[in-house]
């Protein structure tokens, strides 16, 4: 018996006889399909299936597809040599009414645009609702200090702060190096090498260290918050917490927000030191400015207010990052794709908000002549 599916086409006065034999199963069907697709019968087709040794659902579907196509063109299609197994299989597959369902049409771009704008608007409203709910529970816990989750706060301080030190150190050091390199070339043209200290001192402490720390934290801890809470949402852990009376805001949101607000100024301070050190290394290498000279000059050049402004930004950035990323975590739905979707969204949103907040600070402080 042949192992391959075979179809031989014979022509008898306009009547096409299709002799089917062999095993009409998935692995062997593609050759038959290409033969059938080239077939242009005149008036009638007779399928002789008596020699088919093996048949599966794909074989039947192939026959059915062409049987229908032929009949549609007004060609009579007949079947001979059907045995019991064939008919049983056929009735199993085609017994239920094969209701034809028309797939939904693609909506127009205007519809999609409107829909997206609306969902984005809804997102903003939901975020404000989320903030409101969070603050209600903050005031509640503040009036019941025993409910504050100190352990959880400490654990998050470790995971978002201590564990982040290496990456913050590397980023801040490199930023210091880059700023020093770029400015020294310009300053040397005027013989004003010593002003490298002012440039590095002020730009790093006031703007760059807070910003680079916030971006690293948003990418590192913000995404982790979203993924943690999203995973808990998917496994119904959050529902379980609610039924036991453990409020997710008290147990999940505020410990993260408070921990990050404590940690962020400390990380910025750390980034200040490492960044300035990076600048010092380059200043010494490029214009022979010794460390002692650098530090001596820094004491005069760097007013306390620049450093304070940088540090004060920390809790604001931390609040935005932690709130957005926990909020996005709660939006995760039950499918696996949404975790990735909302994690991406959370990082993009928090970095954007940090930059927007930084711009607001700049405007405000300039107006206040600080």
């Amino acid at each position, binding site marked *: 018996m042949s192992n391959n599916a075979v179809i031989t086409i014979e022509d008898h006065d306009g009547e096409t006889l299709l002799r089917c034999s062999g095993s009409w199963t*998935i692995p062997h069907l593609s050759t038959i399909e290409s033969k059938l*697709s080239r077939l242009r019968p005149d008036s009638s087709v007779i399928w002789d299936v008596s020699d088919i040794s093996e048949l599966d659902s794909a074989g039947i579907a192939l026959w059915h597809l062409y049987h229908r196509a032929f009949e549609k063109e007004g060609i009579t299609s007949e079947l001979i040599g059907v045995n019991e197994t064939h008919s049983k299989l056929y009735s*199993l597959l085609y017994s239920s009414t094969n209701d034809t369902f028309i797939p939904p049409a693609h909506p127009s771009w205007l519809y999609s645009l409107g829909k997206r704008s609306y969902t984005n608007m809804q997102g903003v409203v939901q975020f404000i609702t989320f903030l409101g709910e969070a603050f209600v529970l903050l005031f509640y816990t503040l009036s019941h200090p025993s409910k504050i989750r100190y352990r959880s706060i400490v654990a998050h301080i470790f995971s978002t702060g201590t564990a982040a030190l290496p990456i913050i150190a590397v980023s801040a050091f490199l930023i210091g190096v880059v700023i020093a390199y770029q400015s020294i070339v310009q300053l040397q043209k005027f013989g004003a090498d010593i002003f490298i200290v002012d440039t590095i001192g002020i730009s790093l402490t006031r703007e760059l260290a807070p910003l680079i720390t916030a971006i690293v934290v948003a990418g590192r801890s913000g995404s982790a918050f979203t993924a943690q809470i999203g995973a808990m949402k998917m496994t119904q852990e959050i529902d379980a917490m609610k039924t036991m009376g453990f409020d997710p805001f008290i147990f999940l949101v505020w410990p993260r927000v408070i921990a990050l607000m404590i940690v962020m100024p400390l990380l910025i301070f750390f980034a200040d030191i490492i960044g300035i050190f990076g600048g010092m290394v380059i200043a010494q290498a490029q214009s022979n400015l010794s460390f002692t000279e650098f530090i001596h000059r820094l004491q005069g050049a760097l007013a306390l207010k620049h450093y304070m402004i940088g540090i004060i930004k920390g809790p604001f950035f931390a609040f935005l990052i932690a709130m957005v990323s926990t909020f996005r975590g709660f939006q995760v739905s039950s499918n696996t794709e949404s975790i990735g979707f909302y994690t991406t969204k959370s990082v993009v949103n928090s970095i954007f908000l940090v930059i927007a907040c930084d711009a607001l600070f700049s405007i405000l402080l300039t107006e206040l002549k600080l």
Partner: protein
Amino acid sequence: MRKVIIEGRDIVTAFGDTIIHDHISCTIYENEIYALLGGSGSGKSTLLREMILLQSYQSGTLNVLGYDLAAITPLQAQKLRTQWGVLFQSGALYSSLSVGENIAMLYREYTDLSPKLIDELVALKIDLVGLPQHARYLFPSELSGGMIKRAALARALALDPKLLFLDEPTSGLDPLSSRQFDALIRQLRDLLGLTIVMVTHDLDTIHHSIDRFALLGDKKVIAEGRLSEVLQIDHPIVDYFFQKGSYGIQG
């Protein structure tokens, strides 16, 4: 003698120091509905996972469709994987794909059939498991528990496998749907000549659908055979599992 599809001999499985299977054996013949039974933690799901190459075992031999799983090459394993279908307990449909795409994916990867025929086949499989046609455009997150099971069964049947593994096929279904599911599986066995291996807890399924089974407990196979044979055995786990003498199954 009927053809043996799966044969396990002296299988030992251990996770660290915890022994799950202590020299267990079982034989599954062609065209039968075979169940792995046992209480929670008896290692029946582990045994099923070993049969479908998701889990390795420490010693013994396990033969599936003529391949020795301990000595199988990656190419042979790939070939073997196209000859079976697996229905996971939670469906495990790919959540980023619609039901239709979940089924069509197998045809696209493993056959060179035309898109038109693939479309016809997807519609067929959806009909076969009793789903409405519009379900093929739905995503797994939009389906009910029963529909997920049916869609997952349609996917498992896509390549017309000769061997079907079902992990708790009726768990989470209402009694009527469970019986319909059982009937469907029996019908498929009769008409497509399938061999079906399942893990189940459903006493109705055990009573009405299963030909032979292995009862696992105490790291061993306590009993293997037909229900009527096993009920003759006097063993505390048999008594406990089938709730003999109380309101459970009578022989």
